[in-house]
């Protein structure tokens, strides 16, 4: 500890540190801006966030999504939720972190995910969708009490109490997430519930929240609606504003440019609820000139209703 203190203190002396590769390495880490004790480096309540790398989004999220917590990106298919999740994954892998992408829908498209900047070699992919059945050990994993009661009312037949395939698949998905979080070392865990998702029970959500806190990983859920209730620290609701189609010249073939997404912070325990911004997800981000004129005038940084 003393040695680290000395090194970090030397950072102020720019003349001495320039030749030391170890100290230069220290200076490259944005988190270590001061001197920490050992236990402070692993403190859970430290305001550590994972940036998306998108300026507008990071602004309304006060720098990114919190580590060690559950965050949700909510929207229907086509709202841009996968693109934003890929942005966070790209930021995580760019920092050298290891990410996991666990899905129940089989929708992971490695080509476009890689195009968004994700280092696929650092992403552990697991899919429940290609498994025809769920192992017996997972069948009784989770069935929320409400679902159980409603099923009990529907019929008294014993087989009616068996969880539906969607519930079983979702239970297996949550089990997979827990396994990944137990392993530790993952910076980001993306959970893609697909379009046919049911809210998970409080006990399962609590278990996930505690596992995320222990692991210190960002747990990012993609779902059509809120999944974890009060256990999610952030709920980012996405809505597609428009899909841009344009032509490079009159008579030229029509091109699909991308989506304009309205991102609204519907819930944020860390502050900033209600903030919204327009985020652009383009098929070719380098070609920003194809954005609508109104968007270009706003310099892509128009933020609506940002609350402090």
């Amino acid at each position, binding site marked *: 500890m003393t040695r680290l203190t000395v090194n970090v203190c030397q950072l102020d002396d720019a003349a001495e540190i320039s030749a030391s590769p170890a100290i230069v390495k220290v200076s*490259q880490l944005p988190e270590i801006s001061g001197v920490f004790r050992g236990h402070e480096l692993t403190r859970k309540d430290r305001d550590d966030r994972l940036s998306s790398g998108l300026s507008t989004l990071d602004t309304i999220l006060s720098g990114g999504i919190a580590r060690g917590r559950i965050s949700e990106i909510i929207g229907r298919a086509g709202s841009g939720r996968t693109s934003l999740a890929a942005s966070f994954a790209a930021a995580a892998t760019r920092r050298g972190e290891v990410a996991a992408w666990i899905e129940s829908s089989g929708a992971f498209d490695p080509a476009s995910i890689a195009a968004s900047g994700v280092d696929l070699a650092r992403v552990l*992919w697991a899919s429940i969708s290609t498994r025809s059945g769920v192992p017996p050990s997972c069948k009784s994993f989770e069935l929320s009490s409400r679902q159980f009661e409603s099923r009990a009312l529907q019929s008294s037949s014993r087989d009616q109490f068996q969880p539906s395939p969607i519930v079983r698949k979702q239970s297996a998905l949550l089990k997979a997430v827990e396994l990944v979080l137990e392993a530790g070392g993952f910076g980001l865990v993306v959970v893609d519930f697909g379009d046919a998702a049911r809210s998970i029970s409080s006990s399962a959500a609590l278990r996930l929240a505690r596992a995320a806190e222990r692991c210190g990983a960002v747990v990012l859920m993609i779902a059509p609606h809120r999944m974890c209730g009060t256990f999610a620290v952030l709920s980012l609701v996405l809505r597609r504003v428009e899909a841009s189609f344009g032509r490079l010249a009159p008579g030229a073939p029509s091109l699909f440019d991308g989506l304009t997404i309205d991102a609204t912070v519907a819930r944020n325990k860390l502050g900033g609820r209600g903030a919204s911004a327009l985020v652009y997800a383009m098929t070719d981000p380098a070609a920003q000139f194809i954005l609508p004129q109104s968007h270009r005038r706003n310099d892509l940084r128009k933020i609506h209703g940002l609350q402090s």
Partner: protein
Amino acid sequence: MGRIACILVSDFSIAALVRANPTLEGAVLAIADSTAAHAELSVLSLRARERGIRPAMTLAQARAISSDLIIRARSQAAEHSAAAALADAAESISPAVEVGAPGCVWLDLAGLGRIYSSEEEVAAELQRRVRRLGMEAAVGVAANREIAALAARCGGIRVIAPGLEREFLDWLPLDVLKLGPTESGLDLELTLARWGLKRLGDLARLDPDAVGSRLGRRGVELVRLARGGDSRPIQPRQRTETFTESIELEYGIETLEPLGFMMRAMLDRLTARLALRGLVAGDIILALGIGGHRNLSRRIAVAAPSNDARAMLTLINLSLEAAPPEAAVESIRIDLEPRAPRPAQNDMFLPPAPAPDRLETTIARLAALCGPASVGTLMPENSHRPEAVRLERFAPPPPPPVNPDAPEHAVAQLVIRAVRPAVEIEVMCSRGGPEFVRGPNLGARVVSIAGPWRRDGEWWQQIDPDAAGTSAQCPPDNNRHRLDQHELQIVNGHPRRQTALALTISGKESETSDAGIEEALARRVRGPGEGIGWPGLSRDERYADASSLMPESPPLVAVRDIRFLNRSPYAAKKTPDAQTPREGAHQPKSQLREGTSARRGFVRDYYELALDDGGVYRIFRDLNSDQWFVDGVYD
């Protein structure tokens, strides 16, 4: 003078049984050749001797003394494993280890003075390590092997200081030697008792030549032993390549769960041995003995060597689930290849990463949960087909240098959610473009459209009909190969109705359903007397034969190409890579896995459609089958 330690496990057969089955610990246990009433007991546990049971009693006699007597047969497998474990305990202290009779191991203590302060401490450490491996041992330390063994037979820890060997031997009773009959059948113990000898000191005072003339070579050796004479040095055993535990089951096990219980205990014992030697487990070699004296052996690769028995058991279970044994398992043998432990120290200045051993465990559990083909690193395949992916083993590379000054972006890359496999849809076209789309969970009007963008590929695998001329130039092997693939497709459960046979007859293509292939051939192929007969040939052979008959057919019905089409563009557009999938290749759905023999590659027109349901879809029209599919949603 060297110093030798001897580790001795008394009643080794019993100790090996108890080690293999810890529930027998403390039981009134005896070993007999059979469970018949007249069978004689050979080895007894301490509790059995305390009850008054003695060796050579019959089973009926012993049961009369103690009704809770447990009889077991001697287990060679358990004794081999226990002997190896005992040698491991010795080798964890000294590199020079000699294995003697079962349950007896010598080790050279030379050079250990720098590590241990006294020989008593070495002996205590040896005893502790043997206890960790599930056995109780006595340790003797002396100047040579024989005296060390005699010291160990006294029980506990006994160190014979240098120069005091004769003093120790003088009072030692002759019973300790456990003298058996000589080669000539002479009972040495009885003979020495008749001579009035009770202790080794009495024997040492005799003239060796006189004893030798009466008792032979064995008598001379006894006198030399009684005098503490020097013996040969230790002959170190060869280091083992693998760590082995084996067990013979009393009855066959047919299900995985009880087998897992047995293997878990074996893995625990193996990892304890490895840990004692400062090693970790590498690859696993599992040999299962099944009925009919057959052995099934398999090698299970372990990417991250560790001593986590639970993770190893998960890997074994996965392997057994993938390829279960044909019959009940009657014996189990597990070999672990030792590896040097790999330091898993993370860089302080880099982001944390999963520990290799825990990551391996996690991947194994995920594979058990999701299926082995659904866990790993999903990568785009080097193909013109956008849906082509491959699955690689997840092994994150070292993190790249972090650039804190990485610029922020204003625009995100749009990602597509794949629809895998592509779903067939109906598209109503107007003025040459899609107007309305209808399909499963889909039915909306087209609002905006981009495309079409043509993608074609794998045309280089096409058999050029002009070059081939007629099927006479098509090698029969090729046809056969295609037919085999067609058969594979059916085996994989692909509906036959999706298969069609396309015949190019006199330059005009026509298709027929699979069920009507024979009729079509019968109707259109008029070979010299063959027709549709082909007696004695299987259906595939008939097809192959039909193609070979084509050149002899009348020109009117010359068939230039036979190919099998599939209604699914995925299956119809299989690449050679997909036809022979590489190891670990990901094939999410059956349609991706199933192949047909299309040789014309694929030609697709892709569109991006914004529908009035709010989504932007990527659809394509397969020009080979003239069908529409949706294969992704921009999200």
